[in-house]
């Protein structure tokens, strides 16, 4: 397999922390993320709509873009052989331009399924200042060793 940097399953333990990711959110962050996900709803690009109609402080990150930030955060750590199985996130408060969002994550579980696929669960938090804006539970498959590849799993052998 290519010399890509990847985390292997056996090297991971419950309690491991992922490298922190900090991003200064700008209007461009919000608008670019919304349009990249083909989300044309005005609260993600129109300040007046967001504040006067939705009653929030500003335009805010849309749902698919938050998912994409969570994906980036997790796969920055796993490398390209890490394969997302599932993510479940809750947006408690919106993320606005001017916020500095910080993503942190901690491994909460490891398991090997009946087909030998190694799975890691991670609790991810997106915080702004002292506020947890979103939480995300991620289930990601990692290779068992350098010869293993979760992306090769298909059909019944892929259990996300």
């Amino acid at each position: 397999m290519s010399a890509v940097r990847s985390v292997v399953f056996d090297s991971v333990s419950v309690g491991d922390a992922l490298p922190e990711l900090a991003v200064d959110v700008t209007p461009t962050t919000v608008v670019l993320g919304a349009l990249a996900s083909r989300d044309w709803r005005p609260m993600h690009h129109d300040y007046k709509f967001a504040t006067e109609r939705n009653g929030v402080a500003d335009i805010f990150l849309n749902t698919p873009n938050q998912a994409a930030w969570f994906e980036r955060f997790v796969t920055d750590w796993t490398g390209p052989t890490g394969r997302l199985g599932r993510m479940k996130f809750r947006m408690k408060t919106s993320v606005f331009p001017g916020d500095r969002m910080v993503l942190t994550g901690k491994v909460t579980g490891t398991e090997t399924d009946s087909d030998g696929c190694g799975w890691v669960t991670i609790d991810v938090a997106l915080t702004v200042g002292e506020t947890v804006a979103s939480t995300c539970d991620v289930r990601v498959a990692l290779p068992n060793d350098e010869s293993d590849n979760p992306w090769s799993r298909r059909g019944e052998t892929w259990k996300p």
Partner: protein
Amino acid sequence: MTADGSVSAATTVADVADDVPANVREMVGKPMYAQTATFPVERSYGYNTLAATQNANPLFWDDAIASELTGGITLQPTTLSLWMRPHYWEPGAVGEQVALKVHFDLKEIFGLPEAVMTDNTIIFHEPVRPGDVISNQQVLKSVSGPKTTKLGAGRFWVIDVEFHNQDGVLVGVESYTGFGYKRETGESK
């Protein structure tokens, strides 16, 4: 997962508050708005999400790595929903084009002009690749009774969406929790 191994929904329990009207009850659990994308999955559009999140994963930038690991070019998993989102405008279209139609139906039925999404679950199955033509359908799973949050008074609902490729292979399942509301200040335009 269901007994036959397929994933029927990211959530499984239908839960409807007692005061929900009959026309909404009839929607619950019923596949609605089955549709097929009018355009194929496109690699160049996927770059927008990579750029928006400054995602340097070589799986999506290096064709050799993509081929070696996944057997070809693939799109980042969290772009799943965007391949079914309508154009902002197209010939013959009237009014705002929206992706999650059941969500907007519920806003209208309950007279709740505003809404936000609060929860999202995504289950990733077969990778999505350039040239795929995705189809999906929406299933209303639950509707709450009246709730009041800091945004206003309204209701929560859960909608599941299943996505398949042109070969009928499941590529993903999403579940959205929406909160439709009317602002307490009464200023809804």
